[in-house]
């Protein structure tokens, strides 16, 4: 599947290769997806562009657009199968990197809110690339999700399982609103070794994961806002703190949802 996809995608890439990408930022490959997502999703994501097909095509177009295959490498990065088995690295390595990411960000902001926003921004770029990868990795072609519940289920099961090895703990709807949902998680992976000093108040480093959720929803054509909270759950003495990713979809998404519901 991946092979066929990349074939088609690099064709798209060639079509767009005629410039316009000179301003492309930094690093290409999956990395460069940020550029097109900024273009596609940032502009309000019209209902028609929802779904993976669109997202994948654009995401891959940018790297291809500048592709002058690196001398010496056998396969262009676009021709390498996305779903190939890549193995695993140690959790300590990942969490040490994450701690350093927090430390780096902390030294460049003046408030807890700004720190969370920075972490979320880094997570956002992970999320918008993760969509393509999670789809390719699932083995069989996934149907394109166009409905809110469908995409949210995809996030709490497929995305969570691929990135963190388990499902998210729960997905809930806010009482009387069609646009608001939240995902709960007791032990976010990135918080495993994080202890928040008192003077940092309600800092929750899982804002990074909230950013991932935001990124993947945007890439799939579901514009939304994602906020990450800590909720004290005094009813359960064992696990006092629960992380909540609160998701509020934008008006276009809600209108589309109503239309699709018929």
């Amino acid at each position, binding site marked *: 599947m991946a092979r066929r996809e990349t074939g088609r995608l690099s064709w798209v890439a060639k079509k767009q290769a005629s410039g316009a990408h000179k301003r492309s930022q930094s690093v290409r490959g999956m990395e460069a997806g940020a550029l097109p997502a900024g273009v596609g999703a940032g502009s309000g994501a019209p209902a028609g562009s929802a779904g993976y097909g669109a997202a994948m095509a654009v995401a891959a177009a940018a790297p291809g657009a500048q592709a002058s295959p690196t001398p010496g490498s056998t396969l262009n990065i676009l021709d390498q199968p996305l779903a190939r088995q*890549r193995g695993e690295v*140690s959790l300590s390595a990942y969490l040490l990197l994450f701690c350093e990411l927090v430390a780096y960000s902390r030294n460049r902001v003046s408030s807890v809110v700004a720190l969370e926003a920075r972490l979320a921004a880094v997570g956002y770029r*992970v999320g918008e690339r993760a969509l393509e990868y999670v789809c390719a990795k699932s083995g069989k072609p996934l149907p394109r999700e166009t409905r809110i519940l469908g995409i949210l289920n995809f996030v709490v099961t497929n995305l969570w399982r691929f990135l963190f090895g388990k499902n998210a703990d729960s997905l809930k709807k806010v009482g009387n609103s069609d646009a608001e949902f939240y995902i709960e998680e007791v032990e976010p992976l990135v918080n495993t070794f994080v202890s928040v000093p008192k003077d940092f108040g309600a800092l929750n480093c899982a804002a990074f994961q909230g950013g991932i959720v935001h990124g993947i929803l945007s890439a799939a054509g579901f514009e939304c806002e994602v906020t990450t909270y800590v909720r004290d759950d005094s009813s359960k003495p064992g696990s006092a703190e629960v992380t909540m990713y609160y998701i509020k979809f934008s008006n276009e998404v809600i209108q589309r949802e109503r239309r699709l519901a018929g």
Partner: protein
Amino acid sequence: MAVAGLKGKRQRVKEAAGALSMSKGGNMQKLGELALQKGERVPVELLALTYGSLVRQVIADYESIEEVNKQLDLMGYNIGVRLADDFFAKSGVSDCRSFQDSAEIVAKVGFKMYLNVQASVDLWNADNTAYSILFDENPLAEFTELPEEYAQLSFSNLVCGVIRGALEMLLLVVKCEFVRSTLQGNEMNEIRISLVEMLRESAPEDDED
């Protein structure tokens, strides 16, 4: 998850160029593999995407590529300082008595244990104060290509910082840099490490009376 797949799969090991001193390093490699399997793991992709996003952030924060390289190295150094403890607690490596020992340990155990990468030590200089670590798969740079204007970016410079920081905890001050990388079109990655100074262990000055 990918755990099951990993076990069944033969590691894609392409031998790095040059004669490998496998007889000596074989044991070390096993230590690294063991430590990796014992601990918890995350998929390579999560690390690669997070690191890529982090590098972009640093690029956005600093104007010159040199400064970006420096920041990545610095972040790596901070990681390395903490990693040294973690390493000796989990790896099963008990002693590291010389600069030559440290080379084998970093390449064979460290790279395997943390990054699941098969690396080798080679290209020692005449007086044994500099060597290269060679490896071809770089999990940090998975999914990455460098555009031409970033040709000077040492994308995985973080790794150099980690090595520098960890070795400094062993009282070895080293200089560490990428000389070849697959991102820049070479067929393998090479990190050159040269010894600058061996610190002497001394009691901390402000020790209690």
